[in-house]
């Protein structure tokens, strides 16, 4: 970092300059990456472009999860709740009330944030920690799933189809199926989420959140209202994951209770961050890049299995076995995840 010509850092009484904050580096990296990725959908064949969109949805979900569980230290096993709320809020507004998905995304964020704050308030009020906290978040997501399955208000297990529009429209967030616009919108949303998380982490609130994660009592003792910042973090985390849900609906044009609130959705929000690196800015993104295409790779393999494994043809489940194995290996061998480990080696301050 010394090679850059930055304005001189302020010096202290002892005469040593203060270390530079890493945040600008993150912001620059995000910008560079965004610019590099813009032409991607024009290069990729359509099938791969849709994989790329899926990667971005994974990343978005997991950036949200990481905010609460990584930086906030509150391990959520129920992020499907927020993904589903985002998906359902935007689908409900669009299908039942003809409201633009853009407004639907915002509404989903607001509702998810409010729900997260409510769960968070209850969980913190009753001092649930560790396993109890994780199980409570799981229970709330499952309750939403069961409720949605049987509630006329959200069309029961049928879910929602997003009606097709006669022509492409930015306002209705609907394009030709092979349009690169989908990728660009997802990319923009992911970049915004990354920038928001970097800005949040360097803000007063983000710093307080990390302090409260490290030691709640010590944080309170230096004057941090721990509850307020934990709730704020949970709300922000839920809002980001809700964006992923809302975009999912607009891209796949369909949602039902299992796709929205199923426990596998919660796992999909956890895995990228754990594989990439929990409590790192880039972990969820890297994890999503690893995880997103796995399904297609294994499906391809199972369609034409290599010699000796012919009996696997037409079977499914291999992709999840690979996720599971990867998960165990990462937790045991690289507990800081792929990026976390790399950062430790390369960017050691």
């Amino acid at each position, binding site marked *: 970092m010394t090679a850059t010509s930055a304005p001189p850092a302020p010096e202290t009484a002892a005469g040593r300059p203060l270390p530079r904050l890493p945040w600008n580096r993150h912001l620059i990296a995000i910008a560079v990456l965004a610019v590099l990725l813009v032409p991607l959908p024009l290069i990729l064949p359509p099938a791969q472009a849709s994989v790329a969109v899926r990667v971005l949805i994974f990343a978005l979900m997991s950036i949200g999860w990481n905010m609460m569980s990584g930086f906030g230290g509150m391990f959520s096993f129920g992020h499907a709740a927020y993904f589903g709320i985002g998906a359902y809020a935007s689908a409900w507004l669009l299908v039942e009330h003809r409201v633009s998905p853009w407004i639907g995304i915002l509404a989903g964020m607001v509702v998810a944030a409010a729900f997260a704050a409510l769960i968070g308030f209850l969980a913190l009020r009753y001092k649930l920690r560790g396993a109890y906290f994780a199980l409570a978040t799981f229970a709330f997501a*499952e309750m939403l799933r069961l409720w949605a399955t049987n509630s006329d208000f959200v069309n029961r297990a049928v879910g929602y189809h997003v009606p097709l529009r006669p022509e492409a429209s930015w306002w209705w967030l609907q394009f030709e199926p092979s349009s690169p616009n989908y990728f660009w919108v997802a990319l923009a949303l992911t970049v915004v989420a990354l920038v928001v998380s970097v800005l949040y982490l360097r803000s007063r609130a983000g710093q307080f959140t990390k302090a409260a994660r490290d030691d709640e009592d010590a944080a309170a003792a230096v004057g941090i209202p721990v509850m307020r910042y934990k709730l704020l973090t949970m709300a922000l985390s839920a809002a980001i994951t809700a964006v992923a849900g809302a975009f999912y609906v607009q891209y796949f044009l369909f949602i039902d209770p299992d796709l929205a609130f199923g426990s596998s959705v919660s*796992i999909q929000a956890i895995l990228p961050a754990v594989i990439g690196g929990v409590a790192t800015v880039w972990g969820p993104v890297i994890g999503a890049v690893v995880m997103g295409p796995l399904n297609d790779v294994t499906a391809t393999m199972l369609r034409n299995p290599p010699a000796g494994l012919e009996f696997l043809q037409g079977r499914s489940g291999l992709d999840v076995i690979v*996720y599971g194995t990867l998960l165990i290996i990462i937790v*045991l061998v690289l507990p800081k995840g792929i990026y976390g480990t790399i950062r430790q080696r390369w960017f050691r301050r």
Partner: protein
Amino acid sequence: MTSPADQGHVAAAGDVATLDPDEARAPAGRAVPWRRIAVITALIVVAVVLAYVRSGSGVVVVQAVATGVLIGGVYGLIAMGLTLIFGVLDIVNFAHGSFLALALFLTFGLAQAGLHPYLALAVSVPAMFLLGVLVQRGILAGAMGKPLENQLLITLGISLIIENALLLFFGANPRSVPLPGDRGVPIFEAVANLSRILAFVGALLLAGLLYLLLQRTRLGTAIRAVAANDTGAQLVGIDTRVIYAVTFALGTACAGAAGTLVAPLVTIEPTTGALFNIVAFVVVVLGGMGNVVGALVGGLVIGLAEQLGGIYLPGQSPLLSVFIVFVLVLFLRPQGLFGRSA
């Protein structure tokens, strides 16, 4: 935020229980908490009466109670294994249900080969015990003492692998293991299948055996010692690594036994175990994490909640009422109905 800072790391989930003032009055283990049993019984009676009012039919309520109690015993057995593992190893074992699924398929295979389904116990219990030892020594031992999330993620990984390996090799077509000579048995005005009653009785027997093992044998004493204080246990010469492996294996053996017992009742699919797993977590929290007797009682309560909930909330999934009970217990009595004792 009035958490007692001088208690140090309250974050360790099990400690929550020890903060309960009631705990002091009912010292761990021995004394029978009559008052609490009375309260729970009263609550159950109220729930049954309300169900009667709601449904207007005595037969329906009797049937619901019978079915609930019978399946509740099985939930209890599954949850005992889970709670034992939590109490001793501090692991929230997400793979418990998948061990059960494995035992289901094992039982199916043996029954296909002509063995009586219940004789499969002789294979499934030792096999799952062995698998438990292997998993604990091979995978989980490397993460002992790490943050709770690590173990949770590892067991999640194990469950994903087992479940999908079953899917990969057996496919998802539902299978069943019919019990020879199965028939309806009248219980008061209600009826229940013989297989269901046998599963219940079997679950109670095994639960009793496990209880005796923990209370009356040297091994059980060692396990309880490690649960209470592992460094202390180490100091008096207990090899905690062996105890960890044995306890985890006992837990998975419970899942194995439960798998064989329920095989005639359920449709055998790779995901069947996951359904039981969710219920078992609820039961464990209800009974108090690490409390083996609490798990059995919790199982009965949840079995009833599931059946009666179907009467209270018609058209809603019975699981919803299970989760409602779960969340209420989490918030109001996080230490469970019986606090903590292993």
